[in-house]
């Protein structure tokens, strides 16, 4: 059954010969190919590609597969030829060649979001200038973060929290001790914490994060995935220093995205210490927020080297709630509703 070796040949007689050979092989002991069509038919197949009737109408499975393979090969060949031809044309035209087309991706085909923030908009500027984070952005308060977990954390979650605490300056990890968040929050407020971060765990794997800005504002709930701890990382740098890192927020364009970006920005102190050469990145792509922590070095005027310090993880926004954490009576500013919102792959919310 070496169908694969049968080449696609244009001239009919040789094809016939091949088929004859094939038949001989089959006679030598293959049951599955009992209903092979008459001699002339396969010749027609091979000579007239693509066939006049659909490939799916061939009833013999092996035959069908063979034909489909040939069809694909032919297609690939054509494509290659076209590409070569185009390349030649471009070379021939030299400098006058038209610019290359930009490939279509779902990001550049994104459905326009009317909430995209215009930096000159007075109303939005006023709204953002007076919201819950304005105290931080006006440099009135310094961030202080409490990191805790769901009750009885195990395995990676504990280490994940510890490593997060090294990334975020002025962060304190506390054991949850089975306390309710509603009782923790007033205590945090009285101790001047500005953030409460809760890492949720499921079967020893961190899978959720609640980020609550204190004293009175905005609680975001994220899904956490692909957590990679420092130990699991290849070519990682030495442990991070205690310098305040720089923060990069990428692609938070819509109104909701802006809010989330501000939420992340307010986690870190305002004035980064450039001596540390550390940078924390929140990169938003297709509504997934990728966190990376790097150390950089300027090798010369043009080149810069980076070294990842870890941990790395991915966040996806589930909901944004107004006010401090209150899942029962809180008012939600935005809730991700899969069946209503995820109707188009080109629609993004952040």
């Amino acid at each position, binding site marked *: 059954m070496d169908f694969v070796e049968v080449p696609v040949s244009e001239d009919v007689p040789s094809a016939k010969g091949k088929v004859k050979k094939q038949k001989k092989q089959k006679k030598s002991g293959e049951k599955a190919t009992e209903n092979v069509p008459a001699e002339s038919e396969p010749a027609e197949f091979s000579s007239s590609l693509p066939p006049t009737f659909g490939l799916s109408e061939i009833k013999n499975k092996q035959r069908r597969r063979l034909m489909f393979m040939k069809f694909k090969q032919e297609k690939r060949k054509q494509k290659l030829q076209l590409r070569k031809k185009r390349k030649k044309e471009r070379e021939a035209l030299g400098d006058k060649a038209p610019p290359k087309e930009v490939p279509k991706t779902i990001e550049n085909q994104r459905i326009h979001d009317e909430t995209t923030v215009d930096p000159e908009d*007075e*109303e939005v500027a006023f*709204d953002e200038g007076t919201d819950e984070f304005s105290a931080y952005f006006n440099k009135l308060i310094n961030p202080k973060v409490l990191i805790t977990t769901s009750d009885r954390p195990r395995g990676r979650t504990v280490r994940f929290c510890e490593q997060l605490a090294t990334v975020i300056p002025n962060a304190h990890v506390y054991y949850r001790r089975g306390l309710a968040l509603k009782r923790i929050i007033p205590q945090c407020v009285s101790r001047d914490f500005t953030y409460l971060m809760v890492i949720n765990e499921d079967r020893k794997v961190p899978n959720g994060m609640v980020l609550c800005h204190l004293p009175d504002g905005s609680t975001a709930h994220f899904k956490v995935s692909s957590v990679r701890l420092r130990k699991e990382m290849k070519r990682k740098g030495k442990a991070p220093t205690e310098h305040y890192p720089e923060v990069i927020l990428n692609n938070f364009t819509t109104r909701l995205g802006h809010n989330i970006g501000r939420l992340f920005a307010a986690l870190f102190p305002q004035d980064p210490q450039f001596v540390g050469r550390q940078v924390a990145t929140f990169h938003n792509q297709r509504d997934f927020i990728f966190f990376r922590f790097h150390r950089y070095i300027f090798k010369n005027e043009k080149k810069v080297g980076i070294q990842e310090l870890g941990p790395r993880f991915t966040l996806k926004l589930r909901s944004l709630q*107004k006010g401090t954490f209150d899942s029962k*009576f*809180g*008012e*939600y*500013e*935005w809730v991700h509703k899969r069946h209503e919102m995820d109707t188009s792959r080109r629609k993004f919310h952040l």
Partner: protein
Amino acid sequence: MHEEQQWGGLEFRSEQRARAHSVERSNMACVKSQQCSVWVGAETGILKGVCVSRKQVYNFCEMHSLNRDEEICTITWGDEQETEVLMGSVNGRVKTFSIEKGIFTESRECSDLTQGRFTGLAVTDRSLITCVESGLLKVWPEAGGETVEINVGSGVCRMRQNPSERHHVATGGKENPLKVWDLQRPDTPIFTAKNVANDWLDLRVPVWVRDMAFLTQSNKIVTCTGHHQVRVYDPSCQRRPVLEAKFGEVPLTALSVPPGENSVVVGNTHGQLATLDLRKGLVRGCMKGVAGSVRGLQCHPTLPLVASCGLDRFLRIHNLQDRTLMHKVYLKSRLNCVLVSSKDLQCVSDEDEQLEEVKTEEDEVWDAMETVTEKSGKRAAQDEDEVEVVTQSEKKKKKRTKK
């Protein structure tokens, strides 16, 4: 000398221009405000008028003097002809906006920050009714007479007026049951709701009325609560609700009764919007598209339309019959309250009418076109139907693109 003259002339001209400009501006403002059919109050203190047919939004506010203290809590019509809009701010002021002139005509101090936010505004014959969170309900006669004060109990979430008997108001809030007050006899409420019976663990059921509405045809009152119940009270019959329905699992925040009054539209903090049938308390259907908590909800007085706004900063208008989203407008700020005028939302000025005519002509062409059928019998008839449906939908599309 010559120069001086020139300067003087210039000055005069610029003055003139400025005056003309201001007149023009006020004209513009009133033209704008007269076009608007939906009014929305924002958390930033901006009154927004939305012209649905033209898809335009106007901010009626000085953009450079915005203040968080002027956050609009509640909004209502100042008179029955709908020429004035009253809005209550957080800082205790009630402002009057004249739609004809397009400017704020009046502003008066009705409360202060310590009393809490306004929970309701209403107008009876020439007097203003205000109610604040602390439970102080005041009636302000226009002629500057003595104000009547009623203490309706603390933690008020909403005060509403009975549209048929305008001196009746209902109040309710957290641990403050539904009460109906006759403002002519302000000593005792004419109706006080009684809490429902204890639950299956024999525990008291908490009270938290979030919003209410009068059913004028049947003299009933419908409320929604922070514990996701919708209750119908019949004051003529008993003090406990005659019907209780539940919707969702999170607090209901707003409610509105569409024309016909046999159903009610409710919204909750997760942005779920649904019509509930008031005969059996079943969900008729949900309206899709809302992303954040619903703060304001109002049905059109005559048409089957409902406008909703909330924390997701969008004004949405749904059709109640097929529950489709008709309009969606981004308004840039979190929105607190919405007011729908009783005129047709698609009301058209001359320009639009012309467009309409063009449309009808086109429709005629479409109607005149025969559907191509070749097959015979049942199948053909079916096909014909299908084709017709398609053409209709195409027409709709055309209309949409026209607008």
